[in-house]
Structure formats: structure tokens, C-alpha cells
């Protein structure tokens, strides 16, 4: 088990800790997941996301290495910007990991894989893992910037999908205008020694701590994929509805041939949102049927929960690609048919 540099801080705040991707991380603090969720939609919260990996790829070959391997086209961005991208399986085009690349400066890139997939990224790209040298604090919500400005104003000014190297009380930090909640905000990579002090300064400014429970319900409302659920073995970016992540104008990227075949043939399933009636939460791996067509599941959910903002159930599901928005569906939750309908993502738009 790996421990965050903020482990003591979380425990002293009374956090419930859970294992996640090989790390012991906060599930929730004393206020609970629903409170933390709504605080992020209405005010601001801070997450410890130190379990995300950081792999630094640098040098004169770094651009070409990333450009030839990952799906998205780095020519769409420039130094000082961040880009969401995928690492695909060469054989079938399925998503080995979804990644944010922070283009820190000219030939320096911080590649941020999911915790448990860091080895796949270093296998593909080389580079040096710097995960254990820094903590990452994600400050998210409509008030994130105004509250952060009281302690770290330069970070509060880092624009959406921008990346800046900044200094907080003499400590070098890298800050990106990224997140995983559907809200505005920034993520701050801070050296481990200064992480508790920065966390304390941010929470003292009125930003409430939030845990992985709220992080999951927030990303679900925002329709954002989680690797291992909406992305993973057998799932391509096209099936996940993330065709914009694929840089078709590039001559090559890993998995391009397999993905081209699927693009030509058309996807056999597509990730969709289903809004269900009532408070009962749909869950992952529930069969999904077209309402009124009993006995034949046409797909399956990948994630589901109660939406704290909408106050009804929401689920992501792989369904036949030809079903229209508004189609009435049934989600089989342990034998109970939950009525629902296909809705456009995200379920909840930015505040």
C-alpha cells in the first residue's frame, strides 16, 4: 500500500480511508459524500489526487515520442497547455489508459496516467516517474479560483487547460487548469514537503476537503469516463464517444490500424447516459433493456449512482449506437426494473 504525503492530514481530519489503485486514500471526511459533492457544485472543494501518476518525459525527442504513441494530436496545443489523450492497445485499439499531458515547457512533458496504469505509460514512453516527489491538490468548484486567490493568486489565474510553473512561498509548483468534476478549477503539483502547508492554506481559505466518493459522483454527473469502467480492455475511444481524442490527421499513433478498421465499419456499441426515475441508484454492470421489450438486454451499465444535484439515478451504459436520445429504457437493478431514458451527456452542466 502506498500513502499520500497528506496521509496524516487526512487522518487528523477524521477521513475514512479506502484502498484505491494501490493507494490508501480518503473516501470522505466527516461531512460525508453528499455534502462534499454539493459543496463542489456550489462552492469549492479540494481533493488529494496524489495517487495519480506523474511521468516526466523530456528532451529533444519528447514531442515526437508522445506524438507517435498517444492518440491526440499535440499540434493542437503548445507549451504551457494541457491535453487529454489515450494510450491504446496496438492489437485492438482498446484504451490501456486515459491520460492528461501537461506540456510544461518546450521539451518537458508531465504525463499523468491513472495510478494503477503508470507502468503501462512508462513501458510505452520511458521517461522518469516523479509520482513520489510531489502531491497533487485539485481545487474545484465555481468558487475555487476566488478562494484560492487568497493564498496562491498566481495559481488561481491559470486558465482552463493551461499549465504554469509557479512559486508558492518559495516552493516551485506546477499548476494546470484541469480537473475531473465538470467544474472550473486547477490542479496543483506541489513538492511533498510543502504539501501539508499548502493543503492547510487552501482549506483555511474556505475550501472544504472532499474524498474519492464525491470525486466519483461528480465525474459521473459530468459524464466523464473512469478507466476500468467506461474505458479498458475491449473498449475503444470511439465506443466511449471520445472520437475527439483521436488525432486522425497524424500519420501514426499506437493502435491506429485497429481503430481505423472500427471507424470504417462503425462502432457496434456506444457509451450513453441514462437518467432513471426515483432515488434508487443504478449500479455498474446492470443489464439495460429497451422499455417494453422484455427479456432481451441490449447493453449494460458501466457506472451508476444517485445524482445529488438531480436527485434521481444516473448511469453510463454501452448501448446499440442507433438508439435516439429520449428512448425509454429499463435498467435491471438486481431484478427490479428501473424505468429511465437516454439523455445527452453531461447529466449536469457546469455551474
Amino acid at each position: 500500500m502506498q500513502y499520500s504525503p497528506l496521509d496524516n492530514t487526512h487522518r487528523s481530519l477524521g477521513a475514512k480511508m479506502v484502498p484505491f489503485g494501490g493507494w490508501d486514500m480518503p473516501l470522505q471526511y466527516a461531512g460525508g459524500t453528499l455534502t462534499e459533492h454539493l459543496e463542489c457544485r456550489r462552492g469549492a472543494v479540494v481533493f488529494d489526487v496524489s495517487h495519480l501518476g506523474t511521468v516526466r518525459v523530456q528532451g529533444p525527442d519528447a514531442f515526437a515520442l508522445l506524438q507517435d504513441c498517444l492518440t491526440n494530436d499535440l499540434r493542437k496545443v503548445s507549451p504551457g497547455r494541457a491535453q487529454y489523450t489515450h494510450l491504446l492497445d496496438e492489437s485492438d485499439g482498446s484504451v490501456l489508459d486515459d491520460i492528461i499531458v501537461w506540456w510544461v515547457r518546450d521539451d518537458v512533458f508531465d504525463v499523468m496516467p491513472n495510478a494503477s496504469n503508470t507502468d503501462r505509460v512508462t513501458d510505452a514512453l520511458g521517461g522518469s516517474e516523479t509520482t513520489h516527489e510531489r502531491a497533487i491538490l485539485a481545487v474545484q468548484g465555481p468558487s475555487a479560483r476566488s478562494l484560492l486567490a487568497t493564498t496562491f493568486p498566481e495559481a488561481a489565474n491559470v486558465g482552463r487547460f493551461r499549465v504554469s510553473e509557479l512559486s508558492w512561498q518559495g516552493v516551485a509548483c506546477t499548476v494546470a487548469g484541469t480537473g475531473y468534476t465538470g467544474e472550473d478549477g486547477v490542479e496543483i503539483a506541489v513538492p511533498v514537503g510543502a504539501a501539508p502547508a499548502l493543503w492547510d492554506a487552501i482549506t483555511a481559505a474556505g475550501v472544504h476537503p472532499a474524498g474519492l466518493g464525491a470525486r466519483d459522483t461528480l465525474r459521473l454527473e459530468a459524464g466523464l469516463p473512469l478507466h476500468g469502467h467506461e474505458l479498458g480492455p475491449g473498449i475503444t475511444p470511439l465506443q466511449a464517444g471520445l472520437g475527439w481524442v483521436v488525432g486522425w490527421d497524424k500519420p501514426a499513433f499506437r493502435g491506429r490500424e485497429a481503430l481505423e478498421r472500427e471507424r470504417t465499419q462503425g462502432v457496434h456499441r456506444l457509451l450513453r447516459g441514462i437518467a432513471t426515475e426515483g432515488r434508487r441508484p443504478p449500479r455498474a454492470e446492470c443489464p439495460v433493456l429497451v422499455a417494453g421489450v422484455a427479456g432481451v438486454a441490449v447493453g449494460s451499465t458501466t457506472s451508476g449512482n444517485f445524482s445529488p444535484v438531480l436527485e434521481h439515478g444516473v448511469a453510463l451504459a454501452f448501448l446499440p449506437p442507433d438508439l435516439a436520445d429520449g428512448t425509454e429504457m429499463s435498467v435491471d437493478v438486481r431484478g427490479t426494473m428501473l424505468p429511465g431514458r437516454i439523455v445527452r451527456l453531461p447529466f449536469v452542466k457546469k455551474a
Partner: protein
Amino acid sequence: MNVPAQLRYSSDHEWVRIEGNRATIGITDYAQDALGDVVYVQLPSVGTNVVAGASFSEVESTKSVSDVYAPVSGTVSAVNEALTSTPEQLNSDPYGTGWVCVIEMSDPAEADTLLDAAAYLELIGA
């Protein structure tokens, strides 16, 4: 962890208040804390016959779903309809407004097999 002395408990983390043949049922403070924020309670219907040890209700949190097992056998005579719209009362007041249902016991002697507060405290290691 709050474990009121006057109640009885099941090893499945339900509490029981015995008044004559009536057994009022809920989930313990320990159970609600382990579940996290409760967002949905599937209540049994009044008139349902329940058997001790069998699942007769479900409690869903943002994190997981958990069965509620009947601590005693009998017939459901009342359910806490307020939980339909405000299931969070299971978290905020598990022994009070968060009660789940009342069972008219068919075999009141079953209640003697339930744990007392001291035994339940030992079970949860508190």
C-alpha cells in the same frame, strides 16, 4: 459509536425496540457509518410476512447497497414512509426518526436470542 443500552441488536447490525409484541427495527449507528450517505431505502410493504434472518429491505448509499435482515419473525405493521423522501434520516438519527419498520412478532421468544448492548458493543469492537 452510539449503542443505546435499552435496545436489542442483531449480528447483522439492526437494532430492535421491544414493546409487548411490537418490535421496532432500524439500522445501528455503526451500520449507517459503514454505509456512508444513504440515498434510498426500499421499504417493505405493510402486511408482509418476514422470517428472522431473511432480507426484507435494502438500504442504498452512494457507496454500496446493503440488505436489511429481519431480526425477528412476524408481520410488518408499519413502515417509516418519511424515508422515501428523506432517507438521510438513517444517517442523522438512526435510533430515532431513522427507524425503518415495526414488526408484530409471531414468536416473541425470538427476541430473547438478540444481543444486548454490551454484546453488540463487543461484536463491533467498540
